């Protein structure tokens, strides 16, 4: 009896799903906004919900942009994999959203295809597709584009950090590889090694080092060869032994501790307390301002919170029928570099210039590219900041 009931219910559900699934076409999901009088609904895909950078971005969209434009932002919960990203997009489509801004990167190709299938505009925020992927999707009508650091930029950010400390004359360093094999962290770490003047498995170039790091899923210290600088310890990830690894490095009193991400979130107190100069690639936040003013944070390459303003403007334009495309009609693709601060004065000038009601990409600035605007003018604005 019970089995039969379960089977009947399951069949009813399945048939209902099947019937409803075929009851309308995908194009019905598209609900273009009438310029000016309809609130534009934007869904934001996120894979990091607690990092300083992620919180800064969210505050800019929700506390500044949403108050100055007729737009709402809805954030997803932490998306763990490609299936979760796709399901999130489909839910936004089911709820009549107009566009998706993506800070999640498990499978951007599927994200684009899902948005295209559901008539949602899509943009990559603070990141870039792989070159081959961009070539494949750049002509898609609903792909607005991408603005953020490319993998080349990530490598260069790491390289500049390593080079800075080498030029400062450090002799011993510890390195934190963050979440390798995350590609972003792989390229940054490759850059740090090259910037310090080290080779890895005999390679000294970007692709040579990064390729091996992907294969090794981390830095194999036996493959590192440096000149005058000694790497006293390397670790990555975050788990039960992370602080043991950190304290093992701190115990050797290195001249500097170089991190390619998240050190200011995880290790700031320990490093400040041990009086060890450290660096990170993160963002310009109040926490990092304190670490640089009162602690031993000596080098920060970071994004500022409103750096994600232009991609919002481009997306809003697309929703309102003014898509920005290049001369060939393709989606925009602009690499955004990191800003670097090595002292409090520089940090504060960047941080204070991008706070609360007076962000770098303020409403006044964004308004210059909202509406009908040429690709060249848009690029000029992004690259001017």
């Amino acid at each position, binding site marked *: 009896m*019970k089995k039969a009931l379960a089977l009947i219910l399951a069949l009813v559900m399945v048939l209902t799903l099947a019937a409803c699934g075929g009851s309308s076409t995908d194009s019905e999901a598209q609900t273009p906004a009438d310029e000016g009088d309809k609130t534009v609904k934007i869904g934001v895909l996120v894979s990091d919900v607690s990092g300083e950078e992620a919180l800064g971005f969210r505050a800019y969209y929700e506390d500044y942009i949403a108050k100055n434009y007729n737009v709402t932002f809805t*954030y997803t919960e932490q998306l763990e994999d490609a*299936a979760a990203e796709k399901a999130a997009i489909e839910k936004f489509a089911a709820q009549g959203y107009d566009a998706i801004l993506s800070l999640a990167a498990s499978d951007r190709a599927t994200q684009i295809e899902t948005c295209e299938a559901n008539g949602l505009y899509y943009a990559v925020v603070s990141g870039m597709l792989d070159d081959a992927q961009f070539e494949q999707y750049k002509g898609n009508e609903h792909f607005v584009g991408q603005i953020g650091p490319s993998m080349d930029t990530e490598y260069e950010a790491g390289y500049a950090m390593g080079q800075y400390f080498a030029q400062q004359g450090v002799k011993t360093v510890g390195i934190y590889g963050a979440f390798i094999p995350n590609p972003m962290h792989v390229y940054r770490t490759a850059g740090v090694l090259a910037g310090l003047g080290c080779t890895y498995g005999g390679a000294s170039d970007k692709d040579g080092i990064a390729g091996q790091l992907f294969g090794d899923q981390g830095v194999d210290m036996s493959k590192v060869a440096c000149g005058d600088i000694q790497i006293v310890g390397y670790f990555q990830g975050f788990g039960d032994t992370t602080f043991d690894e950190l304290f093992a490095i701190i115990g050797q009193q290195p001249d500097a501790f170089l991190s390619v991400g998240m050190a200011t979130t995880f290790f700031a107190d320990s490093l400040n307390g041990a009086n060890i100069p450290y660096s990170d690639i993160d963002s310009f936040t109040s926490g990092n301002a304190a670490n640089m003013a009162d602690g031993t944070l000596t080098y920060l390459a970071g994004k500022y919170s409103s750096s994600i303003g232009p991609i919002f403007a481009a997306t809003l334009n697309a929703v309102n029928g003014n898509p920005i495309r290049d001369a060939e009609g393709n989606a925009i693709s602009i690499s955004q570099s990191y800003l670097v601060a090595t002292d409090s004065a520089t940090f504060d000038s960047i941080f204070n210039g991008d706070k609360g009601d007076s962000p770098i990409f303020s409403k006044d600035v964004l308004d210059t590219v909202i509406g009908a605007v040429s690709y060249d003018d848009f690029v000029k604005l992004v690259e001017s900041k």
Partner: protein
Amino acid sequence: MDNEAILRKYKLRQKLINILPVAALAVLFTILVVTVQAKGYRLDMYLKIVFNEGVVLAVVATGAVFIYTLGSFDISLGASTLFSATMGVMTYNATGSLALMILVIFGAAVGCSLLSSVLASVFHIPVFVTTVAMMSVLSAIAAQIITTNGGAVGGISIPSALVKPLDNMGFKIAALAVFWLVCFFVFSFTKIGRRQKFLGGNPVCAQLTGIQVNKYAIIAFVMAGLGVGLGAFLTLVYTPSVTATTAGSIGMNIVVAIVFGGMPISGGPRSRIYAALVGGFSYILLNNILKLLIDSNIGYGVSQIVSAVFFLAVVYVTGLNYRSQMLPR
């Protein structure tokens, strides 16, 4: 109270508790439909999303019921799904053959499952221990393959056009139905299911009657492996890419699904083959309802907390059925 009255009361309570998971599924389904319509969202799309989210869990968990019936516990099924999908993608990218890809996915899934079983039998260690080890090993191997071959993209993939024709409700419903019916037949109409329940309920007694533990353990792991293989393939059909985090939550969700479906984790005679199907979809429905009702701006994790409370409540209610002076029937 005489024995007959006790028996009547017991049977009534057992009936009510046994019907609870199915009733809960119906209630949750109704709540979702009402909520989606009240909010003015597209019901057809929402139902499709729920089905897509639930189908892989339902398939893998249905296979896993055979293992759980024995009183064993396999925590490596998520990692097996990831590993099988990874091997499938690598095979397709090397050969260009969809048939070979499917064959490798199922081969890898059944192979992983059997390895867990054989290791447990040979070394006489609890299955749970071997599956913990397998989870670590399979995740590490898959991550190594994915990151080595995925490079800057962070994942490996097959052309989406290859599986797009299969990414529809008809195919997925058919796949789920066929697999479920096979499992239903094996579990309910052959001696395999009966003997596995016996083994799960009282292994010493079962062995004394001549039932071979290893034989039925291997059959259970083969069935679970088939579920993992189908789950891995359906995962690729939905998103044709694999990253190191793919299927990461399946391992624990299977436990939740089976409990939601009204089956005891300890297995034995109260094991039910439909528990995974009912519980899997109930769990997905509950998650979606909570996400619809709870404002995402309230804070991350609120829906998980509510879900956990619900889970404990279900365990308590279904547990009433086990705390009885009567033998299970």
